[in-house]
């Protein structure tokens, strides 16, 4: 590639507020566990995910580590970095933006989890681990377009590391284990088949999106796209102030995230929602709480309110509801608002 063409700016995407919100929440709080974006073709799914990279805060990484280890946090280092750190070496650090790593649907397992390094083996007769996509994605975003078309055995390995934050390799003569904490972002078109429930649950949040129906907004989409195609550089420049503002907002939210509190009462509300909405397990509760906190932080507040929880419930329950077979993924909105209503009445 010669001169890099600027990516379409995140802030210039018209509408699709829910999707944008879900992505931003993950940028603020990586512990949310990613987003699954479900929608028709041509609804700016991929554009939004790719443009998110420009908004991600900068991170410090060990410059010569394939796993982008943090140079100062022992707990999150790979074994090599940890050894060096313990030996008293000052690890070379660079600052860079967190990356968006693509996992193509056609990827093979050895490329995803890593494999035996061919060159080292032939030249030196040594067994070295060749890191794969999961290594690259550590501390960044792992983006799977058309995630529902992913091969089953790739999904299996993905499930494991997405849940534990560690990639364990016992294959092709190599035995290795390295940190693999990534934000899993998937897009899919439900017309082409659903996701396995187990993988579905690994996504922290889920949004269903549709094309925009208001004519003005649609016209705006076209206008902006044309402007961008004509001159991407100045288009990006024009949007830069907005981008910067959003970056600042994310940064600030990240700073105050740890101070955000949820009242006992609201925690019970979350538990109640989870129980009454009949979700499997406890992941939904935890994600709902984290999402509510992050929403508050993004809004500059240090106290979660019930509207945060309502939004969080919408984002975190969609895909976790026990469905009757073939029932569409989606939320029973009525039921949810009823729970809110009755909880408010009880409070008064």
């Amino acid at each position, binding site marked *: 590639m010669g001169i890099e063409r600027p990516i379409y700016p995140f802030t210039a995407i018209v509408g699709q507020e829910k999707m944008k919100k879900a992505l931003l929440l993950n940028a603020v709080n990586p512990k949310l566990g990613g987003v699954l974006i479900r929608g028709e073709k041509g609804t700016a799914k991929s554009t939004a995910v790719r443009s998110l990279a420009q908004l991600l805060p900068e991170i410090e990484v060990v410059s010569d580590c394939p796993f982008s280890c943090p140079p100062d946090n022992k707990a999150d280092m790979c074994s090599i970095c940890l050894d060096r750190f313990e030996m008293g070496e000052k690890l070379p650090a660079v600052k860079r933006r967190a990356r968006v790593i693509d996992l193509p649907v056609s990827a093979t397992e050895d490329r995803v989890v890593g494999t035996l390094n061919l060159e080292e083996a032939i030249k030196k007769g040594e067994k070295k681990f060749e890191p794969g996509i999961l290594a690259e994605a550590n501390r960044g975003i792992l983006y799977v377009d058309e995630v529902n078309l992913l091969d089953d055995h790739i999904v299996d390995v993905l499930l494991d590391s997405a849940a534990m934050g560690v990639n364990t390799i016992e294959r*092709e*003569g190599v035995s290795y284990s390295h940190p693999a904490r990534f934000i899993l972002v998937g897009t899919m078109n439900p017309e082409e088949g659903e996701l396995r429930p187990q993988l579905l649950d690994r996504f922290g949040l889920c949004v269903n999106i549709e094309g925009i129906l208001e004519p003005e907004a649609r016209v705006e989409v076209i206008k902006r796209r044309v402007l961008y195609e004509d001159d991407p550089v100045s288009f990006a420049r024009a949007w830069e102030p907005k981008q910067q503002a959003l970056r600042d907002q994310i940064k600030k939210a990240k700073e105050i995230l740890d101070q955000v509190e949820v009242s006992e009462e609201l925690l019970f509300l979350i*538990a109640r929602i989870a129980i009454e909405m009949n979700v499997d397990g406890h992941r939904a509760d935890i994600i709902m709480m984290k999402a509510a906190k992050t929403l508050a932080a993004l809004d500059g507040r240090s106290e979660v309110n019930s509207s945060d929880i309502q939004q969080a419930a919408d984002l975190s329950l969609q895909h976790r509801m026990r469905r009757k077979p*073939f029932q569409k993924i989606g939320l029973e909105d009525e039921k949810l608002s009823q729970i809110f209503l009755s909880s408010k009445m009880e409070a008064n």
Partner: protein
Amino acid sequence: MPWENLYPFTAIVGQERMKLALLLNAVCPQIGGVLIRGQKGTAKSTLVRSLSVILPEIEVVEGCPFSCDPNDPATLCEQCRNILTKTGSLPVVRRRVQVVDLPIGATEDRVVGTIDLERAIKEGKKCFEPGLLARAHRGILYIDEVNLLNDHIVDIILDAAASGVNIVEREGVSYCHPARFILIGTMNPEEGELRPQLIDRFGMCVTVEGCIDPQKRVAIMSRREEFDRHPAAFLQKWEEKQDKIRQNIQRAIKRLPSVSISDELLSLCSKKAMEALVAGHRADIILQWASLALASFGDRIAVQPEDIETVAELVLFHRKRQSPPPPPQQDKNQPHDHDHHHDHQQPPRQGEENKSNQQPENSSNNNHQGSSSEKEEGQEQENTSAVGQESKPAQATLPFKEKVFQPGEPFKVRRFDLERDRKLRKGSGRRSRTKIATKAGRYVMSTMRRKNNDLAFDATLRAAAPYQSRRKRENVAIAIESSDIREKIREKKIGNFIIFTIDASGSMGANKRMSAAKGAILSLLMDAYQKRDKIGLVAFKGDKAEVILPPTSSIELGYKLMEDLPVGGKTPLTHGLLTAYQLIESQLRKDPFIYPLLVLITDGRSNVSLYGDKPMRESLKVAEIIGNDDRVRTLVVDVEKKGPLALGLSEKIAQQMGAKYFLLEDLRANILIEMVASEMVEIERNGGEGIIIS
């Protein structure tokens, strides 16, 4: 692993039975492990992983890759035995029992161990490089998502678990070492069941569910958040409790040899096992060990009856049977655990009673939720409950989420798996595993046969390694000759292709036939969805048949179409069969590796002619053509009521097609599924090398 801050065992809220099972295994490895089944997000994996930091310490020979026990000369590995005879003593260290992770993507060479590549190349020595089974000796072998594990790897583990020894004969190394380990597996049954032989290897089995107590849920949230925010501080806070439990375990281990069990209680163990109709004696023995461990853990030196009561459920849960064991060949498609864990607390009789008690509730439910069958219900109200009962599986009343169904509604299908076959196939799906010829799929092992240009690099290097000292190497560390080349054998599941051919003529409206049939089909659809099978739907009514769902794996679409399928008109059976057959043929042309199964649901009253012959004769002719095509398997569901007025036409068609045949009266959907299942297995048995493609 340094970057793994493990959530402390003691901080996990609830899940007491799962904790108990793990602790008892830590105290007494003879119990033989735990299988944890449960929904996603119920702390299954968290709990197992957290176990590693509270496990007891053991003495091992320093530097021994197999963690040999210095106090037990009989089980020493070769190397340790040599040291012992030379020096008279062994260097000893104490360390915690290890939890060894077996990732589901693991390849054979890493599991059993293989030739040490580096030493072979550099020193020209043939040495054994231990694999996961070696590392797991005297420890825990943990398999997350164990039901997704590759069959070939499962075989290896079963082998080692049964014999306690790992024998390696590959790539020029011949080695044998002890491999006794506690097997711990976690799985989500939604993703498919486990092979019965593997289930039996687990000493205990626990089913976990989320807590429904809001207090507990809030506690779970707050603790998790606290941990995520400040892991170090959280761990510190719980350290005291962690330490206490560690000491408890150590104490219990020490006490265990002195704990006794009376003869009376021993016979209670056997009685419990017999009541559960378990196969073999493993359950009795494990029950005894488990109750000893529990007594020891509870600071007692004698087993009490309550101990046995407490552990009986853990030990017998997955071993229960209702009737004498089925013949071994059926074992595969009827995993007994699945049958029986629903009704583990009630003898079958009681279950029946329950069912009828709950009947009213079920029918009232039905009015709320638009069931697929309501359209027909209007016409035949009087039959509602009867058919409802029929299409409901027997376990409908038990408190499992997939068990309450309205008439005609789908239900969870019992597993029907095909055995692996040896033929190379292409495709993608989840029902049957098969070795495949394309370059996709999971790399399991390697072969010397060269066909696909799918180089197994690691295996090639290992094959070349032993000869390096003799070969001429120029600028490379390893010289490879063409005789070393190995290729990958990959494994991937392929789906079946099930084509439903449905009689939608007016006669199907009678007696709620359609509703019951739909219920069964929907269930099969759901099963197909999870197994990535392809399905197709052909319906025939009026004067023609129609492909209402072309072969697809988008089952949602099939559901919608099924739901809306109206009934009425004549019965163009011939056209229906022909349409289905053409569909199968075209599908076979596209992909010769699929298993097509034609399911015909009809009353057989063919009354529309396609070629001007008598309708019935035409239908029989077409049936014969299909019957003669041995690529296609068939199954006929007869919806006609048996009686003096019955014409038995469907049966004739079934005979003509060589199809499996059964009646609507038997259409408790479970049976249909079993029928389909047995059909599938039969394909397998005939299958082997010959059946597909000529």
